[in-house]
């Protein structure tokens, strides 16, 4: 039987977009590896693979059951005479979902990749000092509990998605491509991990932060280009599934709307890169390679929430602000707050994710009260997701220490945890530990 012939064009388009998402995951993994030290490169890539695998497994076991899909059964409580759906009542192990190209099965497939993407983001913040087993444990709890809970609220017909129908706040919280659901959840988990792990040895030994540049900018740049390609799929699939006027209540855009989504994504990334080039040139005299690339990714992250509702002009404006956010927040976090984030996960995914949600409130043609719904979504990230991930990672650190030993850090995690370096033919150790 030829089942492909029975799928309509919209389903095939959505499926094509979903299958592009792993390209973004590969790109982010390459960027994290390239922005770290050469002695940790293989460790970061293998950690990405293990974290992705663990996240998918945890999501398979229980994550999707907690998240659910719009229109599915859920647990709710009543407040203000309205029902607040807070967690799905789905079945574990993907049971009860017909895997036949139906909207529910497409949502499931999309979410499997989204949870993998969210899980590898924190690795950028904890690179060079995070034990692989501890990062996998953290990813399991992220994919099995934190992500599904917030994703249910936004994408599964939960209370944030219902703010429009229940309280007249616009169309409810809008986040078509996952600026907050995927990126901010991953970014703030990275912030929790960076706080708990502390900075890499040698980063602040002389008082001021030591510059520890990425070891392979070619890898970083290639990762960025892959991420751009994958992001077209991420935003496209998100908009086709969740980007319609009903938001997370299950309405997607019409297939023709994919043109606007792709255009907004690229415009936002391009203007964010230009903004980062401008501001780094203004600040340092020359464009900084890693900040410019990070700025571009920040633009992609910011584009996700409003990719289906922004106009090209406002998408460009969103990108301009995202580039500036990345450029200045990287320095602020590193110098003023002493947060060591080698991959830039916190400014790129955390802060730009929040900016993306706020950009919808500012720039989109919104109905009354939409900006309050957007603020409620952002408030939930800061006031619920951050304490939750901080508590989870703090608990993990108590029972299974997250940080490697001093000797392991000096030796490099490739040799210490994997037994072989990424570049065995080269001497790659720096001398920052011998400096006075």
């Amino acid at each position, binding site marked *: 039987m030829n089942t492909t012939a029975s799928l309509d064009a919209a389903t095939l388009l959505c499926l094509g977009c979903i299958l592009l998402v792993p390209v973004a995951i590969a790109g982010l993994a390459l960027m994290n590896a390239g922005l770290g030290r050469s002695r940790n490169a293989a460790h970061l890539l293998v950690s990405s693979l293990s974290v992705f695998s663990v996240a998918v497994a945890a999501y398979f076991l229980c994550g999707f059951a907690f998240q659910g899909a719009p229109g599915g059964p859920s647990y709710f409580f009543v*407040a*203000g005479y*309205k029902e*607040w759906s807070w967690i799905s009542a789905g079945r574990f192990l993907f049971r009860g979902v017909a895997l036949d190209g139906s909207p529910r099965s497409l949502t499931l497939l999309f979410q499997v990749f989204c949870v993998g993407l969210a899980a590898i983001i924190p690795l950028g913040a904890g690179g060079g000092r995070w034990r692989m087993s501890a990062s996998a444990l953290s990813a399991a709890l992220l994919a099995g509990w934190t992500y599904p809970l917030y994703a249910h609220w936004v994408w599964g017909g939960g209370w944030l998605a219902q*703010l429009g129908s229940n*309280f*007249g*706040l616009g169309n409810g919280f809008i986040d078509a491509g996952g600026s907050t659901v995927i990126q901010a959840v991953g970014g703030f988990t990275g912030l929790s991990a960076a*706080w708990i792990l*502390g*900075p890499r*040895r*040698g*980063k*602040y*030994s002389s008082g001021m932060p030591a510059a520890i540049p990425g070891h392979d900018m070619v890898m970083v740049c290639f990762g960025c280009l892959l991420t751009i390609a994958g992001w077209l799929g991420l935003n496209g699939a998100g908009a086709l599934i969740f980007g319609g006027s009903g938001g997370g209540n299950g309405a997607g855009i019409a297939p023709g709307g994919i043109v606007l989504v792709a255009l907004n994504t690229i415009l936002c990334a391009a203007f964010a890169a230009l903004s980062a080039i401008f501001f780094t040139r203004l600040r340092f005299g020359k464009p900084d390679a890693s900040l410019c690339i990070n700025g571009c990714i920040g633009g992609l992250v910011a584009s996700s929430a409003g990719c289906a509702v922004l106009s090209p002009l406002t998408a460009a404006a969103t990108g301009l602000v995202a580039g500036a956010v990345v450029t200045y927040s990287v320095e602020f976090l590193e110098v003023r*707050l*002493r*947060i060591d984030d080698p991959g830039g996960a916190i400014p790129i995914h955390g802060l730009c994710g929040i900016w993306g949600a706020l950009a919808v409130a500012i720039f989109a043609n919104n109905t009354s*009260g939409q900006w*309050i719904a957007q*603020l*409620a979504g*952002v*408030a*939930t990230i*800061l*006031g*619920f997701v*951050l*304490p939750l991930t*901080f*508590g989870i990672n703090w608990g993990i650190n108590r029972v299974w220490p997250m940080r490697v030993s001093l000797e392991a850090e*000096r030796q490099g995690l490739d040799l210490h945890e994997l037994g072989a370096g990424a570049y065995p033919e080269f001497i790659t150790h720096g001398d920052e*530990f*011998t*400096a*006075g």
Partner: protein
Amino acid sequence: MKVFSLFLLLAGWFLVVTAIAWLKPGFIPVFVIAGIAVEVLGLVFLARQNLLETVKSTRSQEPRY
């Protein structure tokens, strides 16, 4: 102090949620903004606490090689 910061983050979120659930539409924006302000305060305290811990730990980890 760290627990207090996390409590402030949660308190700000509860303020936002309860305002949406129970207040009249005219009052909601004020309380939502107030809730986010409380969250920002919690974030500042949490960042400051972690900054102090980082400074303390890096002082005790001067290069030993």
